[in-house]
């Protein structure tokens, strides 16, 4: 069952950088789908379309359909704010908002209009548990979030998305700035989280792609070269370019 279906998606930016050419793919529910390939291949652009963050960029041309549960999210009629609550995003660099740990976690709920203290507290604890951060910060929830270490900050960013109980989580190289131990923790959480959420990940290396993916899509210069289950794509790819990249011959 596909959570998201992308149909003939094409995109150009006004400055002529990274773009997408006629992408068609399905993203299955409760799986980790990995988008990988060399820089500038279009992975991040695709990710940002899935919660319409590309609205902030200078897009000159956008065509095709992206269906989330049969609803076209590119349609002008869609409630973008609501979409962003259903599809959460974790960025490459951990950006904590300049407020306390607790406020970081409740921010999304509060802008959505939730005022009930009890439910907010509940969301804080649940999301921190899910991101494997609860034990480390439960005693200092009102400290400024900036005081956390890099790895903790990135897990806080993940928790911040989880607090909104989205349906889909997008992660854009979430471990690129982290040490191996923190990276391991994040990857572990993902395996747990996919039971509840649909996950789309842009990994920071081929190794991470191979470690985490259920399904993997290889992007090169705006085109989807190959898309298959992990086993097939990393051991027996059909396309020569995929094989070359996976084996480290370029990139």
């Amino acid at each position, binding site marked *: 069952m596909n959570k998201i279906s992308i149909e003939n998606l094409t995109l150009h930016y006004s400055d002529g950088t990274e773009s997408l050419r006629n992408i068609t793919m399905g993203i299955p529910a409760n799986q980790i789908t990995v988008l990988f390939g060399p820089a500038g291949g279009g992975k991040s652009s695709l990710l940002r379309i899935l919660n319409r963050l590309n609205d902030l960029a200078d897009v000159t041309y956008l065509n095709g359909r992206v269906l989330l549960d049969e609803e076209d999210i590119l349609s002008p009629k869609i409630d973008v*704010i609501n979409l962003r609550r259903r599809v959460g995003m974790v960025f490459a660099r951990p*950006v904590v908002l300049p407020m306390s740990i607790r406020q970081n976690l409740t*921010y*999304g709920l509060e*802008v959505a209009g939730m005022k009930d203290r009890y439910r907010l507290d509940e969301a804080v604890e649940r999301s921190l548990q899910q991101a494997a951060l609860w034990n480390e910060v439960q005693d200092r929830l009102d400290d400024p979030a900036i005081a956390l270490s890099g790895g903790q900050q990135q897990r806080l*960013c993940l928790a911040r998305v989880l607090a*909104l109980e989205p349906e889909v989580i997008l992660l854009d190289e979430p471990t690129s700035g982290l040490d191996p131990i923190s990276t391991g923790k994040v990857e572990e959480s993902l395996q747990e989280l996919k039971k509840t959420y649909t996950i789309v990940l842009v990994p920071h290396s081929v190794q991470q792609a191979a470690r985490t993916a259920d399904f993997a899509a290889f992007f090169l210069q705006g085109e989807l070269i190959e898309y298959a289950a992990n086993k097939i794509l990393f051991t027996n790819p059909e396309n020569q370019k995929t094989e070359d990249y996976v084996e480290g011959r370029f990139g």
Partner: protein
Amino acid sequence: MIKATSTSTTRYTTQRIGFGLLTAMTLFTVLPILAVVIYILVLGTPAINGEFISGFPREGMRAGGIWPAIVGTFYLTLGTAIFAVPLGIGAAIYLSEYAPENRWTRLIRIAIINLAGIPSVVYGLFGLGLFVLFLQFGTSILAGSLTLSIMTLPVIISTTEEALRAVPQAFRTVSISLGATKWQTIRRIVLPQALPGTLTGVILGLERAAGETAPILFTVAAFFLPRLPASPLDATMALPYHLFVISTQVPGMPVKIQYGTALVLLAFVLGMNFIATTIRSRARARRQW
């Protein structure tokens, strides 16, 4: 090798002379400021007492106090803040958060630069033409405050915009990605982070308004009005205009009162300047990004 050494000696001599010259020029620029402030402080302090601050002028302003002028300047500054602060901050938010990069935005920027450059007496003419005569506010605090607020606008806009732009873009992206609307993002993230810079800009703008004379000459200022204004439609005395009056228009004016008035005006203006710079430097030290 020896030759190279000798030329480099002359080169360094030139440098030493040049640096000395520039240092001297800078001192020539800066020392008079200190001299002015100290001079007024020394000669003005003896005039300051309870009656001078809180009393009304007597004997054709040659005795008594300057209370109506102090109150007038306070009201004018307050009135200017009421109009200029929301408008200035709104414009800064527009330029920093909403404005597309196009011809109109460039036109806005040129207009702001122009507002900043228009001579203060021309603002006075404009205030007379629009507020005093056309809108029939008369010479009043209302007309003066409106005139001063338009004059103050460019300072508030440009410092506030700078403060808003200094807030990292990533905060905005994160906030939007968590489902906040654009205004929620501005209201909850951008504005609080830019608050110290905004305050600094606002106070610096108001400082200018408080010290200006030319724009209020024909819009508010009363030569001699020994009572406090009762409504925004009243004329009022004001410190800068009062200093102008007693130093040029009144023969036989005791010097002590002149220096006292100058000191109170200077304290008013430099006090605001001090508050503004303190806020700015504190915020810089405490900033988390």
